[in-house]
């Protein structure tokens, strides 16, 4: 123990040296971590710019969200947290909260009430999946297909992925068990409400793998959200899964011959956390920013730039048109009633338990 502590102290010193700049945090500067690309751009326009103008605080962007959990853990061990607000997916927020790396938030006390008068906790409702998590958007992992490569009958069901006869060719799926296992079971006749009960058993897992086996040779496995749009655009695959916003920009902004397959889309959440262990001033500023950036109007504003649904119920009626294209955004939202006829909600707690185990099995299955 002492040895570890000593070792940690020394590496903390090293880290402190290398992050001297960040440590010199000026009173009016904050570092916000997000995903980069179009997503960060939408946050810049909807949240950062108005906030900077309103308060005079300078916001520094850091695009490290996909390794936020590991980095926050390292920063915490070194005792030098350089981030003020971090954008993470819900499952990461749960893990950060579990590890004591994120600040617990009291929604009603620390977040703005809804414009329609509802309290923050009612407005966000079930989307507050962890005490540390401030939901921002609802996105979905869903599928798209090449309209010119699927023949005369366009697919209408997620099970088209498993139908090599009707839709020959390659398809792209994410290189992880989450979502794929559920879809495999759904398409193997398991009822939606039974999926996780079945997946909990060895037989159920074998069943899912057996279903995936039928298409294993026709799958390109992706690990970055940008892979499927590129594969679809190049005609490498006839259909593929990715985040709905990526498909939106492929279809609407880049005008590629791609169609949306909303069937069995898996809803997931993305939102903010505030790292634990900030100095009181930084924490107060981070909370102030969060309060501003997650109010009803701001969440609705973000939907002008990217097709992700605002997490507040009260924001939905305010969603308007795309900032530059001038099209109505509502029909492109994963939460739009027409798109959400058959949906699936990512089961965070279940995956927190089975992720390690199933991932080992999944990787071993891939390697065979």
């Amino acid at each position, binding site marked *: 123990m002492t040895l570890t502590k000593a070792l940690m102290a020394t590496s903390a010193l090293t880290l402190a040296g290398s992050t001297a700049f960040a440590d010199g945090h000026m009173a009016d500067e904050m570092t916000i971590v997000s995903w980069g690309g179009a997503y960060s751009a939408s946050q810049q326009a909807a949240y950062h710019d108005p906030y900077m103008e309103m308060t005079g605080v300078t916001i520094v962007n850091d695009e490290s969200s996909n390794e936020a959990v590991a980095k926050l853990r390292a920063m915490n061990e070194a005792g030098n947290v350089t981030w003020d607000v971090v954008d993470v997916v819900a499952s990461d927020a749960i893990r950060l909260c579990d590890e004591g790396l994120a600040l617990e938030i009291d929604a009603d006390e620390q977040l703005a009430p809804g414009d329609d008068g509802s309290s923050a906790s009612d407005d966000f409702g079930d989307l507050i999946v962890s005490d540390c998590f401030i939901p921002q958007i609802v996105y979905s992992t869903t599928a798209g297909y090449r309209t010119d490569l699927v023949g005369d009958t366009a697919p209408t069901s997620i099970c088209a992925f498993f139908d090599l006869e009707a839709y020959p060719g390659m398809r792209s799926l994410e290189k992880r068990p989450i979502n794929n296992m559920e879809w495999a079971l759904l398409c193997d006749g398991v009822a939606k409400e039974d999926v996780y009960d079945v997946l909990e058993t060895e037989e159920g897992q074998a069943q899912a793998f057996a279903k995936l086996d039928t298409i294993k040779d026709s799958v390109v496995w992706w690990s970055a959200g940008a892979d499927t749009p590129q594969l679809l655009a190049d005609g490498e695959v006839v259909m593929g899964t990715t985040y709905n916003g990526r498909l939106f920009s492929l279809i609407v902004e880049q005008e590629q011959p791609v169609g949306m397959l909303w069937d069995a889309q898996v809803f997931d959440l993305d939102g903010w956390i505030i790292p634990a262990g900030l100095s009181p001033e930084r924490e107060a500023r981070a909370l102030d920013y969060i309060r501003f950036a997650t109010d009803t109007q701001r969440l609705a504003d973000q939907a002008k730039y990217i097709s992700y649904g605002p997490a507040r119920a009260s924001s939905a009626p305010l969603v308007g048109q795309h900032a530059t294209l001038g099209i109505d955004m509502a029909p492109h939202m994963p939460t739009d009633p027409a798109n959400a006829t058959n949906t699936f909600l990512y089961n965070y707690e279940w995956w927190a338990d089975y992720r390690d185990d199933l991932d080992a099995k999944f990787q071993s299955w891939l*390697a065979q």
Partner: protein
Amino acid sequence: MAEQVLAADGTPLKASLNRALRRQKMRALLLIAPLLLFIMLTFIIPIGQMLFRSVENQIVGDTIPRTVEALDSWDHDADAVPPAPVFDALAQDLMVAVELKEHTRLGSRLNYEMSGISSLFRKSGRKVDDIGEVYTDQFVALDPAWEEPATWVGLLADPKWIAAREAWDGTGDEPAFIMSRAAKTVLPQTASIYADFARVIQTEDNDSPAEEEPWHVVYLALYNDLTANPSLEVTGPLSGLVSSAATAVPSFETEDVVATFEGFDDDWKNPEVWETIYTYSPAYTNGYFLNSVDLQKTNEGVAWQPENEQIYLTLFWRTMLMSMTITISCILLGYPVAWMLANLPARKANMLMILVLLPFWTSLLVRTSAWKVLLQNQGVINDLLVWIGFVADDNRLALINNATGTIIAMTHILLPFMILPLYSVMQTIPVTYLRAAKSLGATNWTAFWRVYFPQSVPGIGAGSILVFILSIGYYITPEIVGGTKGVFISNRIAYHISSSLNWGLAAALGAILLAIVLALYWAYDRIVGIDNVKLGG
């Protein structure tokens, strides 16, 4: 004995020489000290610390110390859940851990070994503060004084602390709670949990134990202490309160803590959960190392992982094999280029050299992505082959998302590391040797093979070591072009560092990889000799 030689100042020559040498050595050391310190701080210590995690496992013993201790006496072969005292201990440990927000951390640690423990701890943590309420109510009903924080302080605090607290002027932190020695012997369980309670109240809530009613589990501990030793005596003003409680406890309504836990979650009935906690309770474990070679710790000792979870040996083997393939392709492609570079006139050689170096100045990601465009099914190379008629349109070559893709892209990326050492060695081989060989009657081939090639071997050695060692640690390129059959062990290490957060396993995998590299280096030294490696003239 010969007479001592003296220096000019009369000291023995040997001593004076030594002193001078020592001064010189010190000066040399001082000169390299900044570098040494830099390397120590930024390289050796962090790596050592990371590797150390592969055996570290204090989290279990630190988070649930009472449970770990109680489990020592558990007959774990009986295939049953542990006895009630273990659950009592767990209730107390969990209460402390929940207050310190450490229970979920422990849950995720143990979840690496057994699925479901993560939610088990999270779920139980939410309800653990109710355990022992039955006893709280009964103690308070017996005498309302049990509700008073002052009673507890009077019973358990060291007089020194009470005095220090009275002397404290209210600014800054309250003096840290001190447990009285007597309480520790008379009421061991109560004293232990109350000490944790006081610490948590003071450090986490910035409150005082003298103003807060203890947790329910403290009452549970008191009940346990009183039933274990009904004749216990405490001195001082509270002796009456304690002895009347001691007489009353046998008639108390009891709480079945085992049943309470089983009510939180059925998994507490599962002996496997307890087996996992027991197996991973020591402060150091070889579990991560076993996991990283597809083994696991079980009840009956070390066993193979189930077949459908074995992956790491395959990956280690694949990493070695593919790195070797990449190294050999680099030799085959790099040798002629280096030869040309060394033998062309300087102007042309410089031009070529720039072409070799150009990839160095391009981002790795850009180069890898470029290969994607070239190699994919509808990519440039396949299009070209179809256009020539070499392959049929519906039967395009699979050049990417498999091992082929990784080998092609990585050979290209690592080629300069082969060419540069080869080139610098070849430059030093005099052309006259080849001419001499030929004038003595050797054919072109003999002259090359017997005269030129042996002299270039040190360059091949240096290049191979560089390329091989770089390639076994690569993960970005395999991740992008490797699909499922072309990924390396480093991809799993990266996954465990940044996604699964199983740093212990990542460290063990890394340590094994490092050991393999060192072993290969040693073997190389024995076979080829490290002196035969040259990076230049």
